[in-house]
């Protein structure tokens, strides 16, 4: 079937409009990050900096402890991602392979947790972590991120497990492999790409997270990147916009890189999780 040329043109125009809406704000951020103060103050700002500079980046690092905050974020995100798949994969396996009350409860929790009102959870969470002496510590934050990333991780992982044919595991068992052996040497390798994608997704989620970090971390040296970035707000004389943009741009790069890597898998993972067996 052939679509008429006019309709095609309209489709391209619409697509371009979408891309402009989605991309232009980000391009403006990048442009601002490379502009010298004189250009930022100019009454006629341009899209492409006439006189691009890296001074904003240096100033951003001078103003706020960005390196330290990035390390905190990295630690929190790595910890959350690794722990989430370590404890999530076995559970997802059980949820995917067995139809029990437990599996149903887990699926129900995945759904309900999406509707979780953070306000209702954050206060008791604050009190619980306080009694565990995990308030104002990265370890406490990692724990929260793990639990917070688990629903979607379970959802994705269970989908990947369902995609591994039961027959393969049965064949291994017939060949005399024990259950653990089957899991480790047959199922796990097939799941590896899915586990990696899930871990990366959990990483980005934790790297980007703001609310829990804001509430749970008080000491400046422990704060993560998103919290530190908000310190740029307030003093917004035009000259301060450059460092703000520079820091925001840098903070986005890891997420963008990781997301570009796993984009395809996340989409297929959402699909896989959505397919009911």
């Amino acid at each position, binding site marked *: 079937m052939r679509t008429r040329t006019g309709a095609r043109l309209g489709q391209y125009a619409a697509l371009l409009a979408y891309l402009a809406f*989605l991309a232009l704000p980000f391009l403006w951020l990048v442009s601002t990050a490379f502009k010298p103060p004189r250009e930022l103050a100019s009454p006629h700002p341009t899209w492409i900096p006439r006189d691009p500079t890296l001074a904003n980046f240096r100033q951003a690092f001078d103003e706020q402890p960005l390196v330290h905050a990035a390390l905190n974020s990295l630690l929190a995100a790595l910890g959350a991602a690794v722990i989430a798949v370590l404890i999530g994969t076995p559970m997802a396996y059980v949820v995917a392979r067995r139809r029990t009350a437990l599996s149903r409860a887990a699926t129900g929790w995945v759904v309900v947790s999406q509707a979780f009102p953070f306000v209702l959870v954050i*206060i008791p969470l604050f009190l619980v972590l306080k009694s565990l002496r995990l308030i104002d510590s990265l370890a406490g934050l990692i724990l929260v991120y793990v*639990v917070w990333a688990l629903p979607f991780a379970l959802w994705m992982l269970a989908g990947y497990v369902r995609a591994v044919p039961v027959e393969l595991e049965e064949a291994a068992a017939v060949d005399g492999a024990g259950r653990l052996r089957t899991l480790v040497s047959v199922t796990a390798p097939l799941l590896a790409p899915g586990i990696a994608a899930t871990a990366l997704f959990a990483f980005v989620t934790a790297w980007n997270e703001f609310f829990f970090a804001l*509430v749970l971390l008080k000491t400046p040296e422990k704060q993560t990147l998103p919290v530190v970035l908000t310190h740029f707000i307030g003093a917004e004389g035009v000259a301060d916009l450059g460092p703000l943009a520079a820091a925001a741009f840098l903070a986005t790069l890891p997420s963008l890189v990781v997301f570009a890597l796993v984009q395809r898998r996340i989409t297929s993972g959402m699909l896989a999780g*959505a397919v009911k067996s």
Partner: protein
Amino acid sequence: MSVVTDERGRPAGRPGRAVRATGHGAWFLVLPALIPILVLSVGPLLYGILLAFTDAQSGRTAPTRWIGGLNFRDLLQDTLFWESFRIGLVWAVAVTVPQFLLALGLALLLDQDLRLRRPARVLAIVPWAMPEVVVGLMWRLVYHPDAGVLNETLRDLGLGEGRDWLGGLGTALPAVVVVGVWAGLPQTTVALLAGLQNTPRELHEAAAVDGAGAWRRFRTVTWPALRPVALAITALNLIWNFNSFALVYVLTNGGPGGRTRLPMLFAYEEAFRYGQFGYAAAMGCVLVAVVSVLLAVFLAGRLRGGDDA
């Protein structure tokens, strides 16, 4: 060939037997995830509901007491809270509806055989990957009254001198709504695109051969297949948007004059600036209850509507 047995010594021939973990095995696999979930997710939720019936405050030495429904009675009188609640509803609907319509359009475009499809798909998820704080900061730059690109563009087009979008009483809420739509567009698009790819192609082509126009094909072939996904993502978007915090915290922090003070911001301030844990927990309960009811009504209505169609 020897007879293969599982750990309990039974023959392992039946389908599924080999992979089926025994009761103990399953618990062993599940516990590492279950304990943190119970301690840090289910537990706090229940604890939060209990807190709503106490006078818990941060940093107080006197023991916390049960006060029954007093928090809820105070809440009924709290006009500031209900104003914030109203703003939250307006925000959630004003973001979710355009989000859905725009995402549907984009998903339909990306489902076509267009030349720019691949780069467009990658580009379209950029907002999804960005930290919410950065999204907020970025749009502050766009909306900036002096150095912002929006006012500059308006001036170039001769559409007036521009204004302080985030600081104006009338423009603040619409301005943050646009950001909300922008930020949630990719996720909705991806979900709808996934749904579109499940629609039966043959049916589509058959309808086209029969002379059905684009709109008719959409109504009779695409939409029925897409409906479940559309309903699910819209319901989730409603909840997510109602619960959103970071975007508006960064953009306006609830200002000007409380015009963008979403319920989450309100409850956050009540709990962590004024230390009223019990009262804030009661707010949380009310928000959850009302949202659940609205959602149930929305879903019930939609599902029933589907039977008629």
